[in-house]
């Protein structure tokens, strides 16, 4: 069972008497996801001696969108980056606990982080196409993953990825033009095409719309709803309405401050998005989504 870890239980348990606005009696646990593709189990993330995130456990269900929300400094991006070992690139970063991808802990010594990142793709906050053609931006992902097919097969792969990213119709006649010639929203969809080209199972998105205008944002959100049919998506967003619009489940993170003023991110609550935004179980979640925090 993906929900039986201590932290999740702790996040789901509440004492109704504690709150003026009481918690629903029956919302103690969301229906378990059909199949968790990834699962964080009792994870702490350290930067040197500094514990940035503590005791996080979350299952990520197949073909669902899970949103990670919370105030600045709550560790949600750190958690996201731990899912494809992007934190490895920071020399002092250290992960304790497990991050399971299917049945394998991706932090085991023998696991190749490059292979992890092929299967768990990532889209960043700011569109970051390479200074290359639109075609090469997408083909790159396949190439570095050792694509050995014929040119025609690569063409098909590029077309498929651009179609998945809902960009093909807009760029099919200018594939040799620079990725920089596109608008911000198009560039972000190009980055999504690049991320899906190696056929990952999981797509991590770190604030993918924060640099985009509202229309481009809505297009990306619509795209996410389509992409989840093929991928499992985990998104960090500051925009609660966005989390509400796109995600199936939401994990709310917050910050504990100790006596020495050290701030450590923690998972407060993980539940169905409907539940989190209408009747969350934890007072901290309620305070955050209704704007009462300080």
């Amino acid at each position, binding site marked *: 069972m993906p929900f039986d870890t201590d932290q999740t239980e702790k996040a789901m348990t509440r004492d109704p008497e504690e709150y*003026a606005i*009481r*918690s629903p009696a*029956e919302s103690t646990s969301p229906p378990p996801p059909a199949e968790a593709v990834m699962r964080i189990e009792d994870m702490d993330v350290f930067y040197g001696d500094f514990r940035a995130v503590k005791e996080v456990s979350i299952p990520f269900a197949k073909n669902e969108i899970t949103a990670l929300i919370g105030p600045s400094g709550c560790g949600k991006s750190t958690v996201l980056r731990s899912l494809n070992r992007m934190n490895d690139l920071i020399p002092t970063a250290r992960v304790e606990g497990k991050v399971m991808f299917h049945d394998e802990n991706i932090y085991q010594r023998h696991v190749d982080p490059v292979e992890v990142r092929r299967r768990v793709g990532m889209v960043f906050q700011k569109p970051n196409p390479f200074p290359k053609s639109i075609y090469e931006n997408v083909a790159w992902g396949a190439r570095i993953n050792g694509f050995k097919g014929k040119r025609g097969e690569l063409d098909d792969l590029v077309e498929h990825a651009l179609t998945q990213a809902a960009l093909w119709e807009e760029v099919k006649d200018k594939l040799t033009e620079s990725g920089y010639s596109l608008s911000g929203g198009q560039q972000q969809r190009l980055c999504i095409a690049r991320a899906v080209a190696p056929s990952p199972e999981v797509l991590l998105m770190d604030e993918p719309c924060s640099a985009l205008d509202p229309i481009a944002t809505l297009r990306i959100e619509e795209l996410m709803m389509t992409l989840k049919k093929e991928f499992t998506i985990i998104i960090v967003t500051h925009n*609660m309405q966005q989390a509400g619009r796109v995600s199936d489940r939401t994990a709310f993170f917050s910050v504990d401050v100790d006596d020495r003023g050290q701030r450590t991110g923690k998972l407060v609550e993980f539940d169905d998005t409907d539940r989190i*935004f209408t009747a969350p179980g934890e007072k901290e*979640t309620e305070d955050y989504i*209704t*704007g009462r925090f300080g």
Partner: protein
Amino acid sequence: MADTRFRFHDELETLEQKLLSVADQAEQMVEMAVDAYTEGDLEAADRVIELDSVIDQTYLDVHNAWLHLMARQQPMGSDLRRMSMLLHMNTTLERMGDQTVNIAKMAHATTGLPRVDKIAEELREMGDLVRAMVRTGIEALVRRDADEARLLPAMDEPVDRLNRDMYQEVVKAGSDPGRLEWAIKAMMVSRALERVGDQVVDIGEQLAFLLTGEMAEFDESGLGRSDVQPG
């Protein structure tokens, strides 16, 4: 704790206060309407009709303010549930006002007809019971007390019973056409009071939803269908 959305929360509070004063007024209108019918007090009847037009205006004002808040503030959590409650309350209170107007119109339609004392007495009893329900609903709301709201179905029970049995009193009213007409119209008054009772229970259910996050109709013991029975 800092409330970063204090303006929005102030506006919510203002809407709720408006609706609470409408509920207060509705309680008085129930009293006036019952007096109008049972004592043939047409001045009271006219006053009810007048006050209802004020409720109708408040209904429109609250509805518009509610739409603005919804569009601009995109509330979540207990704010969202409170918005839901206020929207329901607004509609329900407007209908309660309409029911008292129905009674007031019956008073006009029966001017000069002889009354049946037993029926008048029972209507007054129903009016008192319903007014107590409105008061209980208001207090539960002000105190944010779901347990108090859960008393409402039990309070509604005698109202329902009096309404159900009203036709027997009408049968006993005798053959005098005037008395009979007054008694038959009294059944409609009884029905209107019974509806007001149900409407107060609805408001109680909305309050329970705000406080617990569970939307469920109260059964007679005041428990929502999805509530867990205590020990």
